[in-house]
Structures are given as C-alpha cells and as structure tokens.
C-alpha cells in the first residue's frame, strides 16, 4: 500500500503550506523597515516599539485580556456542569432541548448572536435597570454564552472516556458524592479543564463581531482596534501584534500539549 501514499502526502503538504505560509509572511514582514508591508527594506524592530507606545491599543489589549480571563473561568464552570449533565445524567426531561441550546451557539452566525444579545441587554435595562450601560459585563456574558459550548465539547470527551472505578472505590469507602467529585473527578479531568479554559480564552480574545454589538461607547476591545486600523489599510504595527499573538499562542499550546501528554502518560503508565 505504501507506494500509493505519496499523492496523499502531497495534498497534506500543500494543505499545511496553505495554512501556514500567510501567517509566516505576516511574521516576516513585521520585521520590515518599510511602512509598505509588501516591499522588503531591511530588518527592523521599530514596529514593536511603536506598538508599545500605542496607548489606545494597549488599553484595548488589557480590557480584552481581563474579559477573556473572566469569560474563560465562568465558561469552564458552566461548560463543565453542562458536560457533566450530558455524560452522567442519562435521559433527563428536556435533554434534547438542552443539547440543542448547547450546540447552537457553536455554528450560529456571530451577527445574530451579537444583535440578539444587544437587544436583550437593552430590553433588560428598560425592565429591571440592569445591566447599567454596556461594557465589560455585557461582553463577558456574551462570550460565555458561546464559549461554554466549546468547553462542554472538550470536557464531555474527557468525562466520557474516564475510568469510573476510582470514583466507585471512593464511594465504597464512604466519601460523599461532592467530595468524590472534588477530590477525584476534577483532578482526573483537569487537562480537559485546562484546554477548555485556554480555548475559551482565545475565543474571547479573538471576537470582533459579538463584542462590537454588545460593547458600550467606552469599551473598545483589541479586535475592534485591530479591525478599525485594518480597514484603514495594511499597517506594520498590526503585523508586529500578530507576531506576538502567534508566538504567545505557539508557546501556550506547546506547554499545554506537553502537560497533557505528561499527565496522560502518567495516568496510563
């Protein structure tokens, strides 16, 4: 069979090139001296320094990071609860509807999610006076609503494969269900919680459309700043920012991957 595999690997090679060459070019041209992104004029790190002086962008980045971290934490809690319900509760009343509500935000076009949540927040403010204005809270709520579905998918997979004999042993020894969950189940699914948290964090950090709808006038997130400067044309500062994000994500994913690997080997070995 093996001599037939080269066409497949050619496709795979071209596929990876398609996925990675644009990002690679972005990184290379972030070190370009020229303002023209497409003409190479010598090596320079000046766009990184310009980025550090761009207070508007730094403020937006800080707001985005705070929203992303809060979102990831809440999404991991609610998403894990949902995954637990799906894996362990069997057929409960309204299960089909529950699953439907949980998966729909995964594919729902962002413009619909953003518009509908904004209209909800406006209506709620009229009825009960909360949320007062829009900003950090409303963006975080909106992000949790779609992030928790991703967390649920990740945690569900892990819970489904989990060996339950340890939990049963602890129960037999008289541990209360809550304690069993805290001391045995959670540590066992911790890698999934970590990857769910990171996934929710990046999803939030990346969102332009939903945040644009539910943000107030005073709250500008990083993607909004990037979007408005991209609309003005290509800017080497955005290349520098992209490089920082790519390096950060690369390191985070590698560390998380190694951690997961170490754990799963320790667990199985």
């Amino acid at each position, binding site marked *: 069979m093996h001599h037939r595999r080269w066409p497949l690997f050619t496709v795979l090679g071209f596929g990876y090139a398609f996925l990675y060459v644009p990002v690679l070019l972005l990184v290379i041209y972030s070190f370009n001296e020229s303002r023209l992104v497409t003409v190479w004029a010598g090596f320079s790190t000046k766009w990184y320094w310009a980025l550090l002086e761009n207070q508007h962008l730094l403020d937006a980045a800080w707001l985005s990071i705070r929203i992303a971290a809060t979102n990831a934490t809440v999404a991991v809690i609610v998403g894990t609860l*949902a995954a*637990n319900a799906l894996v362990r509760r069997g057929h409960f009343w309204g299960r089909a509807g529950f699953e439907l509500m949980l998966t729909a935000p995964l594919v729902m*076009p962002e413009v619909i999610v953003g518009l509908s949540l904004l209209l909800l927040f406006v209506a709620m403010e009229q009825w009960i006076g909360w949320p007062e204005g829009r900003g950090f809270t409303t963006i975080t709520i909106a992000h949790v609503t779609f992030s928790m579905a991703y967390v649920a998918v990740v945690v569900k997979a892990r819970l489904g494969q989990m060996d339950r004999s340890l939990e049963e042993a602890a129960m037999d020894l008289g541990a209360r269900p809550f304690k069993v969950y805290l001391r045995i189940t959670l540590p066992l699914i911790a890698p999934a919680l970590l990857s769910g948290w990171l996934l929710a964090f990046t999803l939030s950090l990346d969102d332009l459309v939903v945040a644009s709808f539910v943000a107030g006038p005073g709250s500008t997130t990083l993607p909004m700043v990037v979007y408005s400067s991209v609309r003005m044309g290509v800017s080497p500062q955005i290349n520098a920012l992209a490089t920082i994000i790519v390096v950060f994500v690369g390191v985070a994913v590698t560390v998380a991957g190694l951690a997961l690997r170490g754990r799963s080997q320790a667990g199985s070995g």
Partner: protein
Amino acid sequence: MSAPAPPSPPGPAANGGGIRHSLQRLRHLLPYPDIAIPALWLVLFFVLPFIIVLQISMAEPALAQPPYTPLWQWATDGVLQIRLNLQNVLLVWSDDLYLAAFLNSLWVAFVCTLLCLLIGYPMAYAIATAPERRRVALLMLIILPFWTSFLIRVYAWIGILKPEGLLNNFLLWLGLIDTPLAILHTQTAVFIGVVYSYLPFMILPLYANLARMDLTLLEAAADLGCRAPRAFLRITLPLSLPGIVAGSMLVFIPVVGEFVIPDLLGGPDSLMVGRMLWTEFFGNKDWPLASAIAILLLILLVVPFVAMQRWQQRLEAD
C-alpha cells in the same frame, strides 16, 4: 395545589396549571445544578434574545433611545394596544437587493463548503492513515492556526492579494503575468479567505470519523479483489458520510452569516447577509430592519442545523 382555586374562566386556569406544572418540573431540577445552571444561562442569554429579536423585527424604527417603537403600550383608557408591523420582514423578502444578498451568501457558503471538502477530505484521510505516533502532531498542526487570531489571519490575505501585494509580485517575478491581477475586493478573495479560515472545521470531524473506521473492511475488500478506487467509493466514502455532513454544516452555517471576511476581502459586489445586517444596524441605525434580516437568516439556517444535529447524534452513536 391544595388551596381552593377561585372560579375563573377556563383559559387562564389552564394556563395557570401549565405554569404550575412547569414550576414543579423546575423544582425537580433543583438537585441537579449541572442541568439547571447551564440551562438557565442558555434560556436567558440565548433563547430569550431571539424572542426579543422577533418582537423588534415587528417594531418601527424611531428617533429615540432605543431606536424603535414599543410593540405594545397601554393607551389612556386602559386598552392594550399591540402594533405589529410586518413591513420589515416583507421588505427584506421582496426587495431585490436583500434577496440578492441572501442568494449570494448561500452561494458563497455552498462553494466554500465544497472547496473545504475537496481539500479537507484528502488531508483528513492522510492524517487518519498516518502512523499513530505522528497523528497527534499532524492534528495539532491543523488546530494551531485556529488558536491564532481569526481577524489577523484574514488580514494576512490583504497583504498577499492586493494589487501590489506579495502574490502579484511573485507572479510578476516569475513572468507568469504582465500586469497585477485584481483579486482583493472580489468574490475570489472571499472564497480564498473563507476556505482558509474554515478548513480546520472541516478536517477535524472528518478525521474523527475516518480515524475510527475499521480498516480491516478495506483489507477484506482488497483480498476479495476489489480495486482501491472502488473500495474507496463503496466502503470508505459511505462510512465517512456522518463526518462529511458534520464538517460541511460546521462550515456552511456560519459562513452564510459571515461578516469579517466579505467586509475585509470582498468588494462592493460581494453582498452578504452578515454584512447587510451590520450595515443596517451600525450604519443606518435601523434596528427593526436588522432584526428582520436576523430572523430570516435564522429561518434559513434551521434546516441545515437540524440536519447537523441528526448526523451528529449518528456520529456519536457509531
């Protein structure tokens, strides 16, 4: 329940019974916070908003804060006035411009789903049949771009596709073309951007499906003298159908409503629903019309979404 109910007309009583019944059901959920908390969150922040969108799609735009007329109000003599305005929905339905945007969105989503499938299937197949120790790394390489910013990956294509961009410079240097190609701000650029951004969503479910496939079936077919292309068509392809449907819907549904890619890479002619909704909302401040577009888009997506749910369950049942 035991308190004697005051005599009341049958309608409200039945209604009250329904509510009491539902409340009882809800009380049964209390010991199950893992069901109750996510369900409550999703009802409040995902289902309820749609009802409000539906309601506002039938309001009229107004120069007020918020910019639409209330759907119902108490008139001075205590009569509840309800004004339903179907103008917006009818306008979106009958106006050629909106219709063109809807049709174009479906067309873009269809073409891109097909392209993702044609590129993604061989890639998923190659990964699924690779030696087991290499699979994790290969799969990681598919997921990794998904973790970096979507907006920035779309931005990368502006620098590549624009007239004085990297692709044109490269082709000119090769001598393949004499004058730069106009790709940016065309439908072609939208296709490239969408396929680039959504390819991982196609590959992952296909891989999950193909990796679980029983390869001994193919060996059995080969032993019985079945040639590889035929074995692929008769065995592999039908067995991977759930993965194909799941991946296709994961691409198709969000692309129909995509905003960022047509906005940054598309031209004035690449009308898409997501962009239209954005313009009505942010540009024209017409919230009712934007809501009407959202409702019609939602109705359009119900069928592919239900199909996805069905096949997803089949995929999990396998």
